[in-house]
């Protein structure tokens, strides 16, 4: 099974996923919404002393499997402290070509038609 899950990867996956670990409060909501098991809570290393003497959570998010990240943006949207950031968008080639032709952001032209 491990092999089967490993193959569901794609070139360039997760390029834009960013984590600001000092903002993370360890709530785990991002782990809950990620459909690819990219993120996990781990023990915070290097002490819990944050900037301006702020006490940090004992657990913090780590990016375990970046290559599995499809940049859906669910984690960033549901992080209460904006510790995660990702450039989410429509991940299909047709959308990107449409966007290029019109000079706009990628848009899959399926409009309201339920294409994908």
């Amino acid at each position, binding site marked *: 099974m491990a092999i*089967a*899950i490993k*193959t*569901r*990867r*794609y*070139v*360039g*996956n*997760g*390029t*834009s996923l960013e984590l600001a670990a000092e903002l993370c409060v360890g709530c785990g*909501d991002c782990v*809950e*919404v*990620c*459909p*690819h*098991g990219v993120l996990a809570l781990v023990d915070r290393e290097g002490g819990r002393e944050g900037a301006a003497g702020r006490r940090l959570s004992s657990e913090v998010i780590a990016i375990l499997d970046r290559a*599995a*990240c*499809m*940049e*859906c*943006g*669910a984690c960033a*949207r*549901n*992080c*209460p402290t904006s510790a995660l950031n990702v*450039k*989410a*968008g*429509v*991940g*299909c*080639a*047709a*959308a*990107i*070509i449409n966007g*290029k032709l019109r000079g706009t952001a*990628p848009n*899959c032209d*399926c*409009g*309201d*038609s*339920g*294409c*994908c």
Partner: protein
Amino acid sequence: MQQVRVRPFAPLAKKSQDRVAGFRELGSDGGPWIEGYLSIGRRSIPKVSTRIDRRDRLGALRVRLGFGRDRYRILPGLYAVGSPGTDSPVLVSANYKLSFDTLRRELGGLDLWLLVIDTKGVNVWCAAGKGSFGTAELVAKLGQCRLGDIVAHRELILPQLGAAGVSGPELRKESGFRAIWGPVRACDIRAFLAAGKKKTQAMSRVNFGLGERLLLAPIEVVHAWPALLAALGLGFLAGLPFAPGWIGRSLSVAIILAGSVLAGAAGFPALLFILPTRSFSIKGAFLGLLWGALASWAFALPLGLAAGLCLVSSAVVAWLGLNFTGSTTFTSPSGAAKEVERTIWPAAIGTGAGLALAALSTALRF
């Protein structure tokens, strides 16, 4: 427009049904999946059947083939399943009829509320990506349906794939409702509820198995019809100047080209994880080359023509493969953008060179 027979639990005047928020049109187009109305105070809430009938199956078949998908929607609003009360869970869903059917068929024997929000007939996953399955729409529907008056708790069970569009923290701030992320697939919802709204790891992962991929093949083939037509046209041209034996040559060229379109539209999804590398265009080029070579060999085509067709075939399948990134659940925008950039010129040049080579070989007979 067919007449809908509803069996109201409490006889309701047409007028008072009309007044129920969000269901103005139910009288004329409620659909056979409404099996009655539930009276709560002065409101009547449509009760959803959990059985799928022949009409639903035909509809599903039709949209799987790509016809009338944009009209395959149901009315947004609050629905009841079974006999829910003030403590019953609330599930949130999109108003794409296919998604709605997939969900309600899993709900037999359960008592719960179903809040259908307006995603313009798009499934949860795509609608979340576009933002129509989003916090604003959800908050608006909560208000319109006055869900707060009907249930005593403040929890919504949302499909996990909706998390790309709905923000739990914002939802809480704006409506007081807490988002609970349910399973990815509707078929796990019963187990999820039975386990006290807890997911197993498998319930929260998308895996895109063979069955899921094959369901997408028919629509890819239907969408590829212009390419199929072009393949037949080019095959005919290959018969020029219609010297004896042209039919055989025409046919083999047409079959190889049309076959490459089918390989891209149906073979590619099926073999996705078997083909080498992570790049969809390289996977496609490989499959196209394989098909072109095998078929040319089977038809014993002259070498030049075979090489030309192989080039065209691998460019075509690479391109269709790249297009399939739109249907998967694991390709990222960064990756797709990179691949488009890398594929567009090689594919165009490959097609051009392949066609030229094939034409030359036909004309000069090598």
